[in-house]
């Protein structure tokens, strides 16, 4: 089952396309990370997924075929928007009651237990909580709904490093425990700038750039399909003509080439060394090369031109 499936999804705001012909299929049971530069269309994609906005063209379905924004979809998806909007003048206890009244399922016991573990007082007004506590409250409200899909928009943006760690730990714990409804674990889709944090948690990666999907796939297979070749800078152009290089980085005599590989044990050119690539490095390389694409299926993969050196 695909927890999110888009086909030719496009969204135009006045004259600018926020999302253009965007097609991905995210399998269920994964923590999927949505990364991309500012204004790439991340929030637009999330808004379409949760039904807050309607596509200009194309389709988006969730939870195995439900149209986004349909009653079935809303019932199974919990969304924590950017900056965790809450009713600031309501006490925490009233936020729980209100969220419970707005949903068919709400696990009061879980929510109260979690808030007391976090030391968030039920009587305090939501607006009086710290930024980290507000984010945790929003997450608690979302998790207590027992969603099948949890969607988070930049959940880490305003959090200090410790709060980031705690927040992601909570998301992961909920996803792994299968805190979704009986019979299925919870899938997660989150957008973030914090690449280091994603490296620990993401099973699936979607890189979005200029409103299009630049890279999408399971993290393990994306990493297996790329490697870094290190060798003499003088030979870099020659290598680039033979192998699909995504990004080239030269430091004086040495060149580091991020290369796409088809087989794990592809031979290394003489005089060069191969290293596995990390997620952060891979994402940064693609962010620097908006023309490069790595998508499942042969349709969109093309061999990038050897590119100019950065640094």
């Amino acid at each position, binding site marked *: *089952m695909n927890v999110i499936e888009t086909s030719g999804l496009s969204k135009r705001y006045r004259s600018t396309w926020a999302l253009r012909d965007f097609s991905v299929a995210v399998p269920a049971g994964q923590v999927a990370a949505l990364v991309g530069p500012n204004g790439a269309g991340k*929030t*637009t994609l999330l*808004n379409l997924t*949760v*039904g*807050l*906005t*309607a596509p200009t063209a194309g389709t988006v379905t969730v*939870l*195995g*075929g*439900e149209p986004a924004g349909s*009653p*079935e979809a*809303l*019932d*199974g*998806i*919990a*969304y924590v*928007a950017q*900056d965790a*909007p*809450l*009713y*600031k003048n*309501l006490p925490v206890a*009233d936020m729980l*009651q*209100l*969220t419970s*009244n*707005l*949903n*068919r*399922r709400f696990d009061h016991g879980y929510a109260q237990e979690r808030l007391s573990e976090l030391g968030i007082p039920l009587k305090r007004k939501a607006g009086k909580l710290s930024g980290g506590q507000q984010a945790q409250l*929003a997450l608690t409200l979302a998790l207590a*709904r027992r969603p099948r899909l949890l969607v988070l928009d930049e959940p880490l943006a305003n959090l200090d490093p410790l709060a980031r760690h705690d927040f992601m730990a909570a998301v992961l714990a909920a996803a792994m425990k299968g805190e979704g*409804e009986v*019979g299925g674990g919870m899938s997660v889709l989150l957008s973030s700038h914090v690449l280091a944090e994603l490296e620990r948690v993401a099973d699936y990666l979607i890189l979005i750039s200029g409103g299009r999907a630049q890279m999408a796939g399971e993290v393990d297979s994306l990493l297996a399909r790329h490697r870094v070749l290190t060798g003499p800078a003088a030979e870099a152009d020659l290598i680039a003509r033979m192998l699909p290089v995504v990004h080239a980085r030269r430091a004086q005599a040495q060149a580091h080439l991020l290369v796409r590989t088809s087989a794990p044990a592809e031979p290394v050119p003489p005089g060069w060394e191969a290293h596995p690539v990390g997620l952060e490095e891979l994402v940064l390389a693609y962010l620097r090369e908006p023309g490069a694409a790595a998508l499942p299926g042969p349709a969109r993969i093309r061999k990038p031109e050897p590119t100019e050196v950065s640094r």
Partner: protein
Amino acid sequence: MTTLNTSAPRRPGTSTRPVRWRRLGAVSWRQYRLSAGGAAVFLAVLAAYLLIMGLRIRSGYASLGSCHLTTSHISRTCQTALMLFGGYHVWGETTAAIMLTVPMLIGAFGGAPILGRELETGTFRFAWTQGAGRTRLALARLALPAVTVTAATAAFSQLFGWFYYPFFAFPADSAFAPQYFELTGIAFAAWTLAAFAIGALAGVLIRKVVPAIAAAMAVWAGLLVVTILYLRPHYQAPLTIRGQNVPGASPWLIHQWWTGPDGQTITNENKIVQLINSPQRGYSQWTTYQPETRYWHFQFIEGGWLLVFSLLLLAATIWLVRRRAA
């Protein structure tokens, strides 16, 4: 080969029985009870004032009861009572002028923030992605306050009618005339509902609370002026008589003018003053008016179209919520 059913498997117990209205009503009440309390205090203070003043006006009116005001000689006591009553009348008129802003204030301050604040602060991203769905939620959030403000102001206009009754009975004023027509009958509640609906729509369109309130008040006042000047006189064709002695106790005088010997309308102000002082042959005065027997007929026409208008605006608001979001 077997055909596979590719549609999404529906798990047991997830057939979408929507979230109950009662629970959405609880959410609605939780979110507007503070402003409802504020409005209740405001109305209670105004009601206490109307009650106290109303009793004094009534006693003043009662002491006029034994006076023969049509005779040329009026007794000393009656002159005093008349002066006192005249003083009350000034108070009453001021109160009526203040009352006219009540529908606008309650409607705009009640209606505009309901969705406007949600959009301004971004909490719509929370509220509209809950299991209840945003259409049902918006309906619940608008319907409950709409019914409350309409009911409260309907009761309130009854109190005003009681308060002002002596001046209508005297008769110093006509309940049919502009300013009093809006404050009595069902018009007061209908105008409040209209202000609420204008406010709700402005909140969704402007997405900021304070500008939406200001816009709603301006639109409401404009609509009232247009209604008084151009719509209400034509609910039914006005009657015209020669002269100025309109039959009935308190009709609504719409227009008076003079015509000359060949039927032309006199526009010269000085000539009109001259004619009022000493009528001349061939010149006549004309009056168009709505007889007071049409008062309730007009109330129902105005209440009816305002109700339809308000429901249309609220429907447009819901439609915008469905359509226009992030």
